[in-house]
């Protein structure tokens, strides 16, 4: 009977049959009253639509309350069961609530739920008599316990009771969701929600299916399998409790229960015929939304002859026009009155699979969603959402003129609940972890891995295995992938501390820098890859565009903003032009992007790590020059990189040998063998994602001490020689690196080992990039001022020598440039290059000692 594969037809049958709309009583009266109205008219699919609901449907005393409620709601899709002929009921039909003795919901209308299909009322079948006989419709309460809704195993009374129990009792002190702000976790959470509804007046109760599942497995199963029947029952239950508690509360309409987070289906690709008419949750990206479609729920007809009026319900998208007037028996006299018909809002939305869920080499699937009433216009194209809804399949209509039917069904999802995955980012980064869920086995596996002593080395090895050696660089990138802990110092006026680690790779061409960048870009979910040569400041930041259709200004975000919380890989960093590079200053320290363009002024988050690669200016690294001189980047920018690595071609035989073996193996090893050898890319990715979202290490006492020592040591190295070899920025880098290393170990506390490794790595990077080529000593001022301390000293000396030389020349007001240079060279014991000479001249010019015009030097 309920074999899933045959559901579409079965359901359709039901939908057609129970064509009566939900009545006000329906929503909250005990079964006895509710069932009274059960349709005598609706017995078969092919039966004509009930043009006029049965008279006995009217609740006693209903008419009294007729005007008690103002027509305050714009969604007029409220079905009427009674008093059709009275125009006065228009718009306030559900105000008659007195018919339900237990309800105190005076003035709270019911609103139809188009998301559950046009019909909510299903017939009940007595299981103990002929269960399948279609004609047996229970009408007595005495049968209540044995009754189930036709086609299901749902018993309304017990289902309602169970759900009420769930609402009243469900407590989960451990569960934490971002929406839970202000909830007492030790009180029944849904009772608090109801209280919230009372206060706020938003009549929607969102129920996490996961909670329901942990509370009552069977009820959960029923919800998933028969949402169309179970959700109305839930509505009933929720409203009963609510109005018991807050009898004076006035809501826009009655509370609607919106379940979400059903575990049934997560991925669009897994949808199959078995999911039809079941409650599902899928995630995806909105690609298109339609305009608002007013969908007729009920048509209003008036006889042209005798002005008799009647209402006709929509049935499967069609309105059956009454051909005969019931009153005067004139044929074809009924005319549709548009502005007295009832419409509900509807919107078609196309949802596309999220790129992460897609298997490689296939195109994304899409699915159509129908949003109703409130949910219309809740999402925009481009939003990532989790949608909970009922999956539907509808046969493509039989064309009356063609006997054959297309054998294909149209499928869509009736949306019950949206959950935007993006919007959570407003709360901060940490919540993003929700997005990526891990199965328990996976978490076990990851934790198991984290306990291994050599996990750090292992992960570093797993990173881009095809790139040979460069272990420290890989380790650095690994730490970058993990990132430091985010700290908030807003209350002390400093704002957020950067947690992202920036790395610059520079070195000879052909040392697989690009390959590393590509690998990282492919590894992280929110990575961007740009090349310095091809990107402009606009492409990196954001630009304002005028929408050709709406003439509206739209902000389009660039690579840096897109890689918020990810890594932005910038290749050929040195080729980037000055203005482009300048936007990076703000991003790399403040982690924001300020935009003031075409009347749009805003600050966007760009909490991105930057992994850049630069080639030396002379195409080959000149070991005789400093980093700055080699790559010609402003030192203000360079000092914002935590680690600067040199990728040089090492020249030693053992290395060559290993490299050769490695490369040769690339060319014949089969792929499977490769997989075994290294950690899977997927595992690596999960490991990083897990650590990023769940591990948040803090500095321990010892580690703090070790950091202080390390910093003092670094400063000491320099102070002996009159140079400073560390700045507070370096200390911050050290902290970040130590934190990242603690994350690698899944440790909540930063310990001395982490500091040691951070120190080592930092020193390694420093040794490579900040060594003064002239003295061979690590000198951080190369990075911070672009010039080593010795070089600066030498420059000063030269300037002084030049000044002396000029002064010794006596009173000559102007000197020949070349002459002066030759003299200086003759006098000096070191080789004076033209550049050095010019620099010295400039220095003297700054002192207002002389001016240089063309080829002559003039004294002042």
């Amino acid at each position, binding site marked *: 009977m309920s074999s899933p594969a045959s559901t579409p037809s079965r359901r359709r049958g039901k939908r057609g049959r129970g064509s009566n709309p939900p009545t006000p009583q329906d929503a909250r009266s005990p079964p006895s009253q509710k069932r009274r109205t059960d349709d005598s008219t609706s017995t078969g699919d092919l039966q004509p639509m009930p043009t006029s609901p049965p008279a006995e449907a009217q609740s006693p005393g209903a008419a009294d309350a007729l005007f008690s409620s103002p027509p305050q709601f714009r969604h007029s899709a409220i079905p009427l069961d009674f008093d059709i002929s009275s125009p006065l009921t228009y718009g306030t039909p559900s105000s008659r609530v007195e018919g339900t003795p237990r309800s105190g919901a005076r003035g709270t209308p019911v609103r139809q739920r188009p998301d559950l299909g046009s019909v909510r009322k299903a017939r009940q079948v007595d299981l103990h008599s002929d269960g399948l006989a279609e004609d047996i419709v229970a009408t007595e309460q005495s049968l209540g316990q044995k009754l189930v809704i036709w086609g299901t195993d749902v018993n309304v009374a017990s289902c309602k009771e169970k759900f009420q129990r769930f609402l009243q009792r469900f407590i989960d002190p451990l569960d934490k969701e971002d929406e839970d702000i202000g909830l007492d976790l030790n009180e029944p959470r849904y009772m608090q929600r109801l209280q919230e509804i009372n206060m706020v007046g938003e009549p929607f109760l969102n129920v996490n299916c996961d909670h329901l599942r942990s509370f009552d497995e069977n009820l959960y199963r029923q919800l998933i399998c028969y949402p169309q029947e179970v959700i109305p029952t839930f509505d009933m239950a929720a409203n009963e409790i609510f109005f018991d508690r807050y009898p004076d509360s006035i809501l826009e309409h009655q509370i609607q229960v919106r379940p979400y987070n059903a575990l049934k289906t997560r991925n669009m690709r897994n949808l199959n015929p078995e999911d039809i008419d079941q409650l599902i949750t899928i995630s995806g990206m909105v*690609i298109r939304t339609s305009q608002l479609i007013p969908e007729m729920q009920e048509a209003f007809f008036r006889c042209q002859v005798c002005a008799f009026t009647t209402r006709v319900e929509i049935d499967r998208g069609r309105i059956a026009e009454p051909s005969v007037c019931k009153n005067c028996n004139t044929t074809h006299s009924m005319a549709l009155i548009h502005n007295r018909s009832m419409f509900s809002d509807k919107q078609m939305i196309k949802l596309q699979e999220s790129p992460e869920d897609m298997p490689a080499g296939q195109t994304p*699937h899409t699915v*159509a969603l129908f949003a109703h009433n409130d949910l219309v216009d809740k999402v925009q194209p481009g939003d990532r959402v989790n949608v909970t809804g009922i999956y539907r399949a*509808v046969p*493509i209509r039989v064309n009356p003129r063609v006997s054959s039917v*297309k054998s294909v069904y149209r*499928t869509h999802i009736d949306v019950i609940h949206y959950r935007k995955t993006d919007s959570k980012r407003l709360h901060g980064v940490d919540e993003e972890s929700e997005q990526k869920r891990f199965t328990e086995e996976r978490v076990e596996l990851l934790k198991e891995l984290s306990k291994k002593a050599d996990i750090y080395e292992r992960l570093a090895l797993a990173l881009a295995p095809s790139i040979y050696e460069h272990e420290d660089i890989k380790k650095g990138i690994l730490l970058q992938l993990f990132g430091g802990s985010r700290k908030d110092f807003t209350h002390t006026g400093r704002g957020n501390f950067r947690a992202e680690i920036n790395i610059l790779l520079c070195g000879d061409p052909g040392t697989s820098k690009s390959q590393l960048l590509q690998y990282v870009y492919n590894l992280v979910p929110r990575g961007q890859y740009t090349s310095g040569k091809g990107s402009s400041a606009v492409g990196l930041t954001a630009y304002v565009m005028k929408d050709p259709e709406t003439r509206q200004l739209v902000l389009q975000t660039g690579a840096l903003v897109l890689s918020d919380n990810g890594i932005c890989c910038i290749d050929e960093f040195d080729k980037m032009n000055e203005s482009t590079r300048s936007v990076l200053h703000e991003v790399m320290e403040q982690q924001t992007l300020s935009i003031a363009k075409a009347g749009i002024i805003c600050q966007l988050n760009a909490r991105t790590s930057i992994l850049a690669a630069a080639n030396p200016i002379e195409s080959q690294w000149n070991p005789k020059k400093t980093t700055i001189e080699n790559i010609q980047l402003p030192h203000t920018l360079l000092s914002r990189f935590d680690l600067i690595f040199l990728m040089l*071609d090492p020249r030693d035989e053992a290395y060559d*040998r290993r490299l050769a073996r490695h490369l*040769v193996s690339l060319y014949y090893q089969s792929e499977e063998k490769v997989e075994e050898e290294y950690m899977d890319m997927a595992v690596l990715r999960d490991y990083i994602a897990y650590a990023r979202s769940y591990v948040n290490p803090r500095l321990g006492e010892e580690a703090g001490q070790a950091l202080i020592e390390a910093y003092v040591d670094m400063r000491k190295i320099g102070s002996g020689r009159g140079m400073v070899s560390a700045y507070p920025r370096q200390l911050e880098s050290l902290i970040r690196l130590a934190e990242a290393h603690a994350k690698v170990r899944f440790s909540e506390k930063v310990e001395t080992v982490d500091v040691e490794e951070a120190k080592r790595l930092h020193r390694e990077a420093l040794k490579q990039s900040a060594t003064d080529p002239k003295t061979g000593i690590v000198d951080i001022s190369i990075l911070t001022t672009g010039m080593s301390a010795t070089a600066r000293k030498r420059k000063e000396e030269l300037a002084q020598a030049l000044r002396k030389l000029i002064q010794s020349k006596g009173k000559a007001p102007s000197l020949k440039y070349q002459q002066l240079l030759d003299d200086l060279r003759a006098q000096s014991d070191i080789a004076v290059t033209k550049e050095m000479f010019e620099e010295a001249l400039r220095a003297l010019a700054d002192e207002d000692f002389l001016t240089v015009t063309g080829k002559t030097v003039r004294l002042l």
Partner: protein
Amino acid sequence: MPCVGDWLNCPLSIVQGIFAQNAPNSDWEKKVTEYFKEKLKENNATNWVPSLNDVPVHYLKPNSLVKFRCMVQDMFDPEFYMGVYETVDPNTNARVLHFGKYRDVAECGPQQEIDLNSSQTVTSERQTFYCVPVPGESAWVKEISFLTESALIYKLASQARVSPSTSYTPSRHKRSYEEDEDMDLHPSKQKEQHMGKSCCCGGDIHGCVEPKRLETEASAGHHVISPNCSPPLDLNFPLPGEKGPACLVKVYESWESFKVNDVLEVFGVLSVDPVLSIVNSEERDSSTLDPMECMDTAEEQRVHSPPASLVPRIHVILAQKLQHINPLLPVCLNEEESKTCEFVSNFMSELSPVRAELLGFLTHALLGDSLAAEYLILHLISTVYARRDVLPLGKFTVNLSGCPQNSAFAEHLYRLIQQLVPASYHLRMSIESMNHSRFIPHKDYTANRLVSGLLQLASNTSLVIDETQLEQGQLDTAGVHNVTALGNLITWQKVDYDFNYHRMEFPCNINVLITSEGRSLLPSDCQVHLQPQIIPPNMEEYMSSLLTAVLPSVLNKFRIYLSLLRLLDYSISDEVTKAVEEDFVEMRKNNPESVTADDLHKMLLVARFLSLSAGQTTLSRERWLRAKQLEALRKARLQQQQCVNGNEL
């Protein structure tokens, strides 16, 4: 023969038979595929199945078995359909079960109605692929597969009126003469040929199909706009000027295993039911009325359910991925089958003369430069055989620099290559073409389809980029994107398809050959500077005489050679690994500047393809030395060239 006609002409009746036997049991589906698998295994049975590639749709009988060699261009959403349904006769209340598989339309008799609420109804799922003929498929592939495989089609299809022996022969002769000269006219000529003949499909279908046929041609560039049809439907071929039927292929089993850009050969039931189109147009009319139908835009409707006569449907019974599309090779090259083994070993035994001949041929084609010819062979048999994280292994992009500019050398070289490889495309780079053509496929969300671009090519397609015609000028944004895409394609063998909100990476395997005057602006694995020994006064004459000098049988051998060697396995023994290691260390010792890791990469690649080109599947010491020698020669040439240039400057 009668039985053959049965499963070929009305496969659905056979399915019906099997269905009736096993009705409620879902085993029948398996039995159907088994049945057809068996049938197709019989002696060359696959050759009897008419191919959509060769025969215009309107000559094929609706609901007959057809085959189609195609590339998956786009994948539509899965469809739910009535796998099994029941019809009721309202008068007698008699109920009959039907199957909906392999059909677009649920059939029922004139007096019957479909019971949509029957408990017997089974809903099933199938996937639709939008398939186009393999882009850039060479003319000879079409021709040969037409000659060898579908020799029997007309015999079978038009059995009723034409006797088998007479109908075929004359047309073949006629075709093979003309094909070489102007393949452009291929389909129309074919049509002419068969127009005169009795039409097998019956007048009614034919009549309604004919105007639509014109529409295809119009959109394919003939600019014949027939007055009564709406703006021509873009059939979404990746390459401009392509022709041939696009097809909606409905796959019933294991569709997860197919990917975009896979080359498939499908056997299935052809469905061109005009009802499909009628239903659509009606739907479109009533869409204002019906909220259910307005969920798809008109554009989407047009794309997803185009007229069946223009884009026929194939309901797949059997589908297989093709490793190659060379009709001269057995379709499937696995070792189990003795026939294939025999074929391979036979060919291997005469490999070296073929190689020598091919080398000679290419040397002539490259104006007497044998080194360049050697590299060209290596390039032509290269293929991406594995990927290590992001690094594709086995790609071998050659930049042939120093091409004479004025004599249209590049153009003629491409024509020769086209004669050798099964699929190719000649990309003439110019400011204009870079700025205005669409390279990267992108998703059109209004029509909900992947709009194709030049770089959506099947595996092992040869892309010959002609840079000699590139002039100075300004590239606009589109142009820059296109050049970047080309660069990515060459370096990483992947194309980032544009999905508007995000980009998606599709790995590919395309052989790129760049002809340029100086060093190309695109990256390449290896630059070979051409040193012409002879400059023929008339390039056109020279090249065409070159081609006519080669016997067709020899040409076919070349084709087999290039396709077959690509599929061979390869390994390096430990011993040779050691030797290579030693060698590398030695080279570095002498001059660390001269040999880098990149050079070793290149040498290993050259060694790999050099061994394979000689039919050897392991690397030997001699080959390694030969590879080194080739590389040294190539480098010396480059250096020499640099010196020359330096002097000029």
